[in-house]
């Protein structure tokens, strides 16, 4: 008898728990039939703030309801991967530009070429040429640039003045010269900080030296003089001891006390410096990249894509189109502090007058996106390891690059 009581209790506990779990989760499924709900996955803080724009969109389009799900940057990849595997994705998806080719290659993103004529906001001439590259994969259009970023040079005006530079170094030779002089200020001082874990940096140098990525060329042009020369230039900073090989002081702090007076970074750094080192306001600014053949920098940011099996394509396009209107983009600049992708938005006074943003506007005219190749991540990481072996391991650059080319070919196959 007692036996039964216990097993009964157990069964009860089990069923109650599942019931409870079921109840607490089944919310208001599906809304009334005359409105369509589209789901949008947006990242991190942007995802939280996007709600401010969707309200207006819903007011203008009462038949469409927008549900934004914010997804943390750190784990966005896990989330999207499970969505791809289960075909259980959103309608609209924010993607970092470096992810586009990979997910487009897997056919996870809808080709919106057939709809382009209906939406003038999506025309290529509206965007910077560097970002137009991020819209496409092979001959499909898979994403619309939402906001962008590019790398520029951050430097301490006062410190550079000390070594005779009243302006930012404008060429490779000047950069080398300034860096050498800055290092000579004393022990533990450096000229330039190059983030050795940033995979786009070597490519920026290569582009500046005239390198062109070509997926069809043998070794993807990694054997060209322009590429090899750029890697020599890149590694020379470390070999000559004028760029730090170990992390040392964290960059903002080192910038603040003048230990590392020059570095390359994106627009997000403006706020970080203002927050973490308010003391040096007025003693630093930004400038376009130094040039060799050109002064090319990279372009990144985020695009908005439509998940391949979305059932609400028209509504989703309408939403993306709304987000990418010049006025909405300027509003978004105000809300989220990211740079608008529309060229026309840059005529706005805010972007023209802010001294730190000026260099970004100028730099955007000469940018390239990271190569649209599904295996790019693996190749770029391989290149970083190769350079690390040269810089820290003291290996020979020529032979290591030789190995890298073989490896890169293997990755692409």
């Amino acid at each position, binding site marked *: 008898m007692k036996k039964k009581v216990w*097993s009964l209790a157990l069964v009860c506990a*089990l069923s109650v728990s599942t019931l409870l779990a079921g109840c607490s989760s089944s919310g208001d499924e599906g809304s009334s039939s005359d409105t369509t709900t589209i789901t949008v996955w947006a990242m991190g803080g942007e995802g939280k703030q996007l709600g401010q724009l969707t309200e207006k969109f819903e007011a203008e389009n009462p038949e469409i309801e927008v549900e934004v799900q914010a997804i943390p940057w750190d784990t966005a*990849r*896990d989330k999207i*991967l499970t969505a*791809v*595997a289960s075909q259980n994705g959103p309608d609209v998806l924010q993607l970092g530009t470096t992810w586009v080719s*990979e*997910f487009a*290659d*897997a*056919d*996870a993103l809808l080709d919106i070429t057939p709809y382009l004529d209906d939406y003038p906001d999506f025309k290529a001439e509206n965007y910077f040429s560097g970002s137009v590259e991020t819209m496409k994969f092979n001959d499909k259009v898979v994403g619309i640039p939402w906001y962008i970023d590019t790398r520029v040079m951050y430097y301490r005006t006062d410190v550079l003045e000390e070594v005779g530079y009243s302006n930012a170094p404008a060429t490779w030779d000047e950069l080398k010269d300034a860096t050498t002089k800055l290092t000579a200020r004393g022990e*533990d001082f450096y000229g330039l900080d190059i983030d050795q*874990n940033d995979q786009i940096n070597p490519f920026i140098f290569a582009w500046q030296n005239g390198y062109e990525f070509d997926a069809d060329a043998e070794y993807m042009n990694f054997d060209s003089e322009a590429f090899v020369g750029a890697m020599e230039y890149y590694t020379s900073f470390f070999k000559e001891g004028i760029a730090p*090989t*170990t*992390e*040392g*002081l964290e960059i903002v702090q080192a910038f603040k006390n003048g230990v590392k007076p020059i570095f390359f970074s994106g627009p997000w750094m403006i706020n970080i410096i203002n927050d973490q080192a308010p003391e040096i306001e007025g003693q630093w600014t930004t400038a376009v990249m130094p040039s060799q053949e050109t002064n090319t920098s990279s372009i990144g940011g985020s695009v908005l894509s439509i998940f*391949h099996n979305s059932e609400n394509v028209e509504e989703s396009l309408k939403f993306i189109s709304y987000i990418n209107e010049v006025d909405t983009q300027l509003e978004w600049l105000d809300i989220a502090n990211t740079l608008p992708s529309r060229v026309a938005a840059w005529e706005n006074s805010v972007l023209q007058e802010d001294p730190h943003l000026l260099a970004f506007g100028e730099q955007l005219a000469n940018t390239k996106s990271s190569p649209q190749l*599904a*295996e790019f*991540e*693996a190749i770029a*990481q391989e290149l970083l*390891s190769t350079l*690390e*072996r040269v810089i*820290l*391991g003291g290996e020979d650059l020529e032979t290591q690059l030789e190995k890298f080319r073989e490896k890169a070919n293997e990755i692409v196959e």
Partner: protein
Amino acid sequence: MGTVKNLMKNRHPYIFIAPAIIILTVFSIIPIVVALFISFTDLNLKGLADWSNISFIGLENYASLLSDEVFHRSIFNTFFYVIFGVPLVIFFSLSIALLLNYGSSLLFKIFRGVYYMPSITNIIAVAVVWGYLYNTEYGLINYLLSLVHVDKIPWLGEPTIAKISLIILAVWKGIGINMIIFLAALQGIPKMYYEAAEIDGANRFQRLFYITIPLLRFAIFFVTVTTLIGWLQFFEEPFIMTKGGPLDGTISMSLFIYKNGFQFSEFGYAAAGSFVLFIFIIIVTLLQFKLRKSDTDY
């Protein structure tokens, strides 16, 4: 008929294990079998999106692992971590548990919590504080060493030293959980054993080695097995502190698997790597169970 009756009579253990076994089967064992299958395929992002893109490639992933230098290095590093880290964790957590068991005043109660703190400290705080301690040029440790005229040590900048630095960090972080397990186990030792030993004139060390440690065997066994399993999957410390560098000097097998699976989307290759790791772990674990069988006999 007889077996059914037998089963009815012996059904209790099965009822007891049923919920756990069902859950583990569905959410762990089946996925592991799926992963094993994946390790014989070229599954990548394309295959994930459309299963018709997946092809069976037999042992090719395993063959490439054999010739992957980074993977070899990750195996070497993993064993380096395990060989030095595991004994240290067990030694420190047991010592601290014994010290904490010494008294029951408020001080000792508080310090049970204090020694548990590292395991609940947010990982970003860990990275920032330890990053500062280990910083070559501005770090606290090198500053203290400079006071006694020791040259700067590149704590995270040289492959072997970086491994040791990560072991120290992981030991610091890993003490807490094992400590409370030992503390709980210490409560199971009847006081009368000690009283008897005292009457026999046994000193403190004799009591430690002839009563405490033997009676803690079941807990030590548990901690050893789980710590070994955990350390063979060493991941978080290199992930946050060094990303596997410098020169792949701190990359562990788990980090290697993570990089290939999540950064490069080579799921088939990553799965193959994880089964190599699995084989190492299961050999080590079974070995411990074997050794233990022989030691319960005496």
